[in-house]
């Protein structure tokens, strides 16, 4: 027999859908089906059941082959590596719960590590911009119930946040948005006619990398001032049209993604986007929100915010928290060869960092705590498989609008497998022993 677990939270993207239904065996050991999830979320749940899943830690041998080791040996290697290093990098923290992030932070403090999360290659530049000029934001509940002008700038939720539009931004009928998508106007700014752009009322096919110019043009257009004939590849008539559309709404929301944070201009693009939002508030209610990628990257920013005062790139190597993006960020540290050990948990820099950084990880003592086999585990010296957070263990996660949601355990992990938090607890205890505290 089977049973259905309802209201399950999806641990894939920052949308953190909380309406999944998962069919599991009566003893809770097997997971059979997933309902309501997007294709990516469903795959994440189902992959936990893969027959070829690794269940024990392994260590790379000199000849390049793997040797299975015990959790005790993995804990010993990790604790020694971190305690012996002068300035270890502890990276990732986005695909795990806040409880594990807190334990990891304690280890980081004890060994003088640089703590960095995936915002460093995602919305790190947005965080810099928020520190520069603040952010007028809101929750996704407000978007669902109030927003009637939706602008997606440099993001493609049809692919990256597949249920965002149906749950919150475009299609749902909310308290003041009873007509659903027919009562909303949707604008997409993207250098490609993406699948999101195809359903928009207006698509501005911007020249790649010219976001700052177009954002500034919006500020000019709001005021009804003169624009050049073409800005960033967009005829001025289209800019005026889009600006008027935004101004005429009751509640406008700007969602932005990697198109602005990763193109040249970086944090200054976000400065401009936030300034657009501020200007728009002269005419109507407007808010702006980053489309956070990992389901709990927001949470790691929260945890470090309350522990250290900074949301990412926190350097604890001097015994107190320092933060200086460009200096204490993972890719800068790796490329300049400024760290002497790498610990990765809940992320895959091997796949998602530029290759020059990956090569540096390969050359250093390194541990990857990761349920899957990934390019990161391929370049690390020790690979520690753990239980999937949000599938095999619960814990707190923060949605992209900074709303905390408790994820749920729906199925048992393979026998004898540790969770992130259990593994970190034991590493912390061993580090304390080594340090004699």
């Amino acid at each position: 027999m089977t049973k259905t677990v309802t209201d399950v939270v999806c641990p894939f993207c920052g949308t953190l859908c909380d309406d999944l239904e998962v069919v599991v065996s009566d003893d809770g050991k097997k997971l059979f089906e997933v309902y309501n999830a997007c294709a990516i979320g469903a795959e994440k749940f189902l992959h936990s059941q893969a027959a070829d899943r690794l269940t024990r830690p392994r260590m790379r041998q000199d000849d390049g082959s793997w040797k299975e080791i015990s959790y005790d040996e993995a804990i010993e290697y990790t604790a020694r590596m971190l305690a012996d290093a002068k300035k270890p990098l502890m990276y990732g923290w986005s695909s795990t719960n806040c409880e594990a992030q807190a334990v990891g932070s304690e280890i980081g403090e004890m060994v003088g590590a640089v703590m960095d999360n995936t915002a460093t290659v995602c919305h790190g530049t947005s965080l810099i911009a928020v520190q520069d000029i603040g952010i007028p934001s809101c929750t996704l509940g407000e978007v669902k119930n109030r927003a009637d002008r939706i602008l997606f700038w440099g993001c493609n939720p049809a692919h990256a946040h597949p249920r965002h539009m149906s749950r919150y931004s475009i299609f749902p009928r909310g308290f003041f948005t009873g007509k659903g998508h027919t009562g909303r106007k949707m604008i997409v700014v993207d250098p490609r006619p993406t699948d999101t752009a195809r359903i928009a009322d207006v698509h501005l096919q911007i020249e790649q990398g010219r976001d700052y110019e177009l954002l500034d043009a919006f500020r000019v257009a709001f005021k009804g001032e003169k624009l050049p004939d073409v800005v960033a590849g967009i005829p001025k008539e289209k800019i005026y049209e889009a600006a008027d559309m935004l101004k005429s709404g009751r509640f406008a929301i700007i969602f932005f993604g990697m198109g602005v944070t990763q193109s040249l201009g970086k944090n200054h693009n976000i400065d401009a986007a936030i300034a657009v939002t501020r200007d728009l508030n002269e005419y109507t209610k407007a808010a702006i929100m980053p489309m956070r990628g990992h389901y709990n990257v927001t949470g790691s920013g929260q945890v470090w915010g309350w522990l250290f005062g900074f949301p990412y790139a926190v350097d604890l190597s001097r015994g107190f928290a320092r933060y200086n993006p460009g200096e204490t960020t993972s890719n800068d540290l790796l490329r300049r060869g400024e760290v002497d050990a790498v610990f990765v948990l809940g992320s895959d820099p091997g796949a998602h960092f530029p290759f020059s950084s990956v090569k540096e990880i390969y050359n250093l003592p390194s541990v990857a705590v990761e349920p899957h086999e990934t390019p990161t585990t391929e370049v690390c010296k020790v690979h520690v498989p753990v239980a999937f957070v949000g599938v095999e263990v619960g814990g707190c996660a923060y949605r992209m609008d900074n709303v905390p949601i408790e994820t749920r355990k729906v199925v048992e992990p393979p026998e004898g497998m540790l969770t992130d938090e259990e593994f970190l607890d034991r590493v912390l205890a061993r580090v304390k022993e080594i340090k004699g505290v």
Partner: protein
Amino acid sequence: MAIRVNLITGRTIQQGVSMEAGKEKPAYTAACGIIELDPADFKKLGAFRNTTVRVTSQYGSVVVKAVEATQGPHPGVAYIPMGPWANRVVNPNTYSTGMPTFKGTPVTVEVAKNEPVLDSLELVRKGCRGELA
């Protein structure tokens, strides 16, 4: 014949699904070991769809399969889904922001018919050992 295009990267749903199904599996290579080119750029390149090509920037080089743009047209812009293939060639400079420049790398694309598209693990392994061009 080689063409110059502006490379951007990012998520596709196929990338997301195959990533969660296992990055060591062939589906991940099929989803991310590709470059999406506009039909106009295919014409300039003088290549058929699904030809293997070598993509080169001043930062590195990688062999991927050229496919027609799924979210086009975007002449002059090429797209490799985020992953180890794209990261062989993207601009790693952060310009003191911490963020590598994943979008907007000028690249050259040329036909490389007989070269294989490596899977993700082999690509990083061989790259780290210095066994790749």
